[in-house]
């Protein structure tokens, strides 16, 4: 019976003008978003890869210098966009494109797309994720709000029931029919998306598990909206009231709750200002992390330890450059201070974001949004990971130069110069993109919420037998 209803539903859908309007709008939007987004990602990655090479060349082409001075030339860490960011740009528009890495200072990332954009950007970016997350649910509602109410209004539901069916079977049949119809619509898009992704990754392989998880998640999301639409239609008396309820749900799910939950997060957990943050770091560096270990004392302790290590009494007798050793220690110390304070800010952001993540249990649209960003490598944890890798590289290249200076010169020697061979000791920066397990680990709540939504939907379908036919 379910199969017959599903077949009939697909046939009816394909006969309806509104479904074809929905189909054309959806496919046109998806095609436009795919073209727009993939061109943009390709262009940006080309620019950033070239810029990263230029930065490397600039580093190696420096004239001979004292190694610490050479480190001051600095290096750039450009953020290469993840291949799947063409599908979901996530936070990428709101985070910077590069970090300038230099001794003594931890810089913030620069030039986010948002800084250079007008308020148009705040309405959303035309990416496949935008279309599938925001527009697709509305199209599902348009195509399905009257699926069961019209059977009631036309008294055909009673006929169906008289033929031995139950309301539950009718609902399941309709869900299956609509799901299959939308699957047929989305399938060509997914196939084209795979080709687009393959064109990005000519050197590396397509990350199939990530891709299938992404498509699977979107298909589940499509299913959740179809189930909600059918359930509302089944519980409503008229098509008009079903439409109103569903539009209300859509409005809450894709526009109000995401904003509200994020806004509440920042109202509860207040972000410190740049000035407050910098003041804390300055204080820690000057007075020591514990407040009782000032810079002079740290330097004195280090001097004693170094003299002891080399079994000499005066700094002039040291076989190494103590200035460079002090700089290594100082670099490690300031990095420790920075990481500690940065971690506090990150934890604050995580707390702010957690409220939105918990809201996923109220709102499937948010659960999908965060899962999708995580799979595409454009969520907060991936951004944080890039910052961490860049900072690790900063400490590595600065201290590689400082260590070279410490072993190849003597204390007070700031004039001996070294060239390209020394600069080549520093390996180029290359961002190692995180594995899928990293994405899953950092978005556990949103993935769990999606599963909970599926369970809720199944339970609600089970309950539909209590609905009256009129």
């Amino acid at each position, binding site marked *: 019976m379910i199969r017959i209803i599903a077949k009939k539903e697909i046939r009816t859908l394909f006969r309806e003008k509104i479904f074809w309007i929905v189909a054309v709008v959806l496919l046109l939007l998806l095609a436009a978003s795919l073209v*727009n987004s993939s061109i943009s990602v390709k262009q940006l990655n080309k620019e950033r890869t070239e810029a990263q090479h230029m930065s490397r060349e600039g580093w190696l082409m420096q004239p001979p210098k004292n190694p610490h001075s050479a480190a001051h030339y600095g290096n750039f860490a450009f953020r290469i966009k993840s291949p799947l960011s063409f599908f979901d740009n996530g936070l990428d528009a709101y985070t910077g*494109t590069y970090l300038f890495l230099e001794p003594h200072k931890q810089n913030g990332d620069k030039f986010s797309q948002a800084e250079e954009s007008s308020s*148009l950007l705040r309405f*959303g970016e035309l990416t496949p994720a935008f279309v599938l997350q925001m527009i697709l649910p509305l199209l599902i509602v348009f195509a399905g709000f009257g699926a069961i109410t019209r059977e009631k209004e036309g008294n055909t539901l009673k006929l169906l029931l008289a033929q031995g069916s139950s309301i539950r079977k009718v609902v399941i049949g309709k869900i299956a029919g609509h799901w299959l119809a939308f699957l047929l619509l989305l399938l060509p898009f997914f196939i084209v998306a795979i080709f687009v992704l393959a064109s990005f990754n000519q050197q590396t392989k397509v990350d199939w598990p990530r891709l299938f998880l992404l498509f699977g998640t979107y298909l589940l999301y499509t299913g959740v909206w179809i189930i909600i639409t059918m359930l509302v239609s089944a519980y409503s008396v008229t098509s*008009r009231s079903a439409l109103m309820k569903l539009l209300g749900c859509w409005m809450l799910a894709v526009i109000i709750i995401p904003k509200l939950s994020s806004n509440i997060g920042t*109202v509860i957990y207040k*972000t410190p*200002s740049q000035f407050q943050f910098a003041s804390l770091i300055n204080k820690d560096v000057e007075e020591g992390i514990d407040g009782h270990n000032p810079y002079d004392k740290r330097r004195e302790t280090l001097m004693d330890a170094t003299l002891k290590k080399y079994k000499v009494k005066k700094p002039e007798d040291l076989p190494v450059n103590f200035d460079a050793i002090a700089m290594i220690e100082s670099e490690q110390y300031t990095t420790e201070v*920075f990481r500690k304070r*940065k971690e506090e800010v990150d934890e604050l952001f995580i707390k702010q974001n957690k409220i939105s993540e918990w809201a996923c249990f109220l709102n499937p649209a948010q659960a999908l949004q965060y899962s999708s960003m995580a799979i595409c490598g454009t969520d907060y944890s991936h951004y944080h990971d890039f910052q961490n890798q860049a900072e690790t590289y900063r400490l590595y290249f600065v201290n590689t130069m400082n260590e070279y200076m410490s072993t190849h010169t003597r204390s007070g020697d700031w004039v001996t110069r070294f060239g390209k061979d020394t600069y080549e000791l520093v390996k180029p920066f290359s961002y190692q993109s995180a594995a899928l397990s990293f994405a899953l680990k950092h978005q556990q709540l949103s993935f769990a919420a999606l599963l909970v939504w599926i369970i809720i939907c199944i339970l609600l379908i089970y309950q539909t037998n209590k609905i009256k036919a009129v």
Partner: protein
Amino acid sequence: MKVIYQYEWKQLVRSSAFIWLTLLLFAIGLYAIFYGRNEVKQQQFKISLLRENIEKNNLAMADSLLKKDTAASELGEFTGRLHANNPDGIAALSFGQRDIHKFAQHITNGSFFYNKYATGYYNKTMSGEIVNPFKLLAGHLDLSFVFLFLFPLYFILLSYNLFSSEQENGTIGLLGMQPVPVKIIVLHKLLLRLFIVALSGVSLLLIGGLVNYTITDFRILLFAAAFISYLICWMGIIALLISFKRSSWFNALALVAVWISFTLLLPSILNAILNTRYPVHTKTELAAAVQKANAEFFAMDKKTKTDSFKHTFPFYANSFDTIGSWEDPKFYRVTHTLIDNYVLPFEKERINLLKKRNEFSTSLSYFSPTLITQNIFNDLAGSNMSQMLQYDTSAWHYFKQISRYTDDMIFLKSNRADSKDFEKLPLYEYKPVIKNSVIVLDLLVLVCAGVLLLLSSGFINNKR
């Protein structure tokens, strides 16, 4: 006519859906006012912290200058001035782009562009604020959002079946027997709804004005005018669709489709067009220029550096022979000035491109009444992109003023400064420029579009 209004009003207040919808909208509106107020207070608090710190340093400097003079280079280096984009009460109603851009900078000596583009979290306020990108993505739920997104939907839900419900309930014949034409009755029904929606919005605006202490600000009136013009535009759209005399569900679907096109789809498509015409390139040249300038000018020998400085700034050419080493203030001023001078053309290119991009974006916004109204709201609140750009560039001009003032003392007055010199350190308060003529033009566009759509609906009514 009075009977129509009375009857319609009674019908509406009897409807529980109308009451609930209005209450829900009011609740969201009140939250939006609270949210906007909170955002403004947070930024004001952050600005006040920086101001207090700068004032504390300045007081200490003033005290010390009463006892003896000091090196002029220290005026700009250790004290400096605050350069803030202080949000006022109107900004609480439309927060716009304020969360993306910096709003409090400590202008000191040094290299402006190095501080802006290279030195970040560590010790400077010129490179940007700490923001949660996740929050930026979600956007604001301020009053302008409620006006732009939710009020048109409220209007649609109250009005989509004005004519079709009469057809569907079989009362259209009765209406046709009245001495007044049906289209006029429908228009009055629509006007009543416009009045209700506008009154709800203006009430929220007044509450917002009271809460933010801006009720006497003239801009509140313009804010209300923009909101009402936006509603007039929507009234035209609704009237036009109703005039096709289709079923209620068709009207609802079509109006929601128009709503989503204007509020979501069109802006995202226009943004894509904007990005195609003016792509947001990685600022490789600018970033490399900062890096190169910093490395090269510090490594450059004193003679070449001095000659280069004197060539660029001839008014200081005769004041000194050559710069000293690291301990000489002239060493830093010359090096930092040369760095800024080198980077300036790259920065100008960035600003010019941003201006062009922003102008194109503004022209694109005429495709959607939502975007036009948002521009008006943001303009009034000093929260739009062009005003953020003004603030950004004014920081450079203010820095130039301060550094020129201290440089004159460093290079021309043997680097000495007393308390009078310190008192005269330039002061500047940033105020966003609000272009009233553009706002009036935008208001006219909205009203004209609304009237044109209303006239079109009348024409279609006559035809059918």
